[in-house]
């Protein structure tokens, strides 16, 4: 990559891109806290959870399973499976960040869709790193403003179903997974995963339908190898 210096590289994220990232994570942070408080967590615990877990989707999966009556184990496993997304994003980063163990570890723990996407677009390593760290800074600022104001806000809202808060939760997830659903394989995996889950909800123990939805991946791969022939 470094041997093609004259290649036109996509521009680095500018001020308005960074502001958009910050705003998105402010919104996600507020949404997350409102959902956690609605699930009965104390404000302090909810704030700590979002700071240390640092993954809204994993928290959402955990709460979805426990609210459905699933066991603690099933809730944690659901959170882990959803977090596999970050493992995959870190894999993409491992192609950009070479060298020092510390800088690679620091990059890995900040693997989120937006920054990895921005970094992967760049054609040279230095610019990729710059794009990654600038967007990460924008995200961190947004996330902590969001979870802090969400904690304060959720605490004074009272009866949240009146505001349709339970609809915030799936809408936020759909927005996060939206880009993956634009590819054919992603769409097949998502639709089959959803159907598996819906079919199993009335008959399987709570939490298991979500875990078994990984079967959607098999369906997507089977379909794409068949059409490739």
């Amino acid at each position, binding site marked *: 990559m470094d041997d093609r210096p004259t290649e036109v590289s996509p521009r680095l994220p500018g001020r308005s891109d960074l502001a958009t990232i910050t705003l998105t994570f402010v919104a996600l942070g507020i949404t997350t806290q409102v959902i956690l408080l609605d699930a009965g967590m104390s404000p302090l615990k909810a704030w700590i959870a979002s700071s240390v877990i640092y993954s809204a989707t994993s928290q959402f999966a955990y709460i979805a399973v426990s609210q459905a009556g699933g066991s603690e184990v099933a809730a944690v496993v659901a959170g882990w499976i959803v977090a*596999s997304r970050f493992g995959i994003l870190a894999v993409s980063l491992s192609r950009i960040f070479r060298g020092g163990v510390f800088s690679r570890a620091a990059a890995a723990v900040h693997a989120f869709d937006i920054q990895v996407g921005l970094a992967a677009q760049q054609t040279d390593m230095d610019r990729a790193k710059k794009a990654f760290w600038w967007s990460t800074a924008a995200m961190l600022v947004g996330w902590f403003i969001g979870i802090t104001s969400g904690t304060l806000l959720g605490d004074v809202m009272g009866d949240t179903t009146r505001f*349709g808060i339970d609809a915030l939760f799936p809408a936020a997830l759909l927005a996060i997974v939206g880009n993956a659903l634009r590819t054919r394989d992603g769409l097949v995996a998502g639709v089959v995963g959803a159907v598996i889950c819906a079919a199993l909800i009335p008959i399987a123990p709570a939490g298991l339908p979500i875990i078994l939805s990984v079967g959607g991946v098999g369906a997507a791969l089977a379909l794409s190898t068949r059409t490739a022939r």
Partner: protein
Amino acid sequence: MTTIGIVLVAAGVWGQRLAGMFLVGPILERRPILSRAASLIPAAVICAVIVQLTIANKQQLVIDARLAGLVVAGVLVWRKAPFILIVVAAAATTAIIRAL
């Protein structure tokens, strides 16, 4: 979330990120089919979580105002609306239908 739940989920999130960078990355680089499969897991599981949250009440399938909110969210995601607009519109739709 319970305290032990917070600790375990956090360990899973951080652990998978570090594993992705240091262990899985080098392995997957040589096995494209595995890396395709791995990249599809989130789409399948997140869609299942959406189903659980939208058309289920514990272990029963139900259709109520939440589904209308999700449909609105779906249209907005498809039109690439900003995140804040998507979640606010979904919540507002559900709240309005409930208030009717």
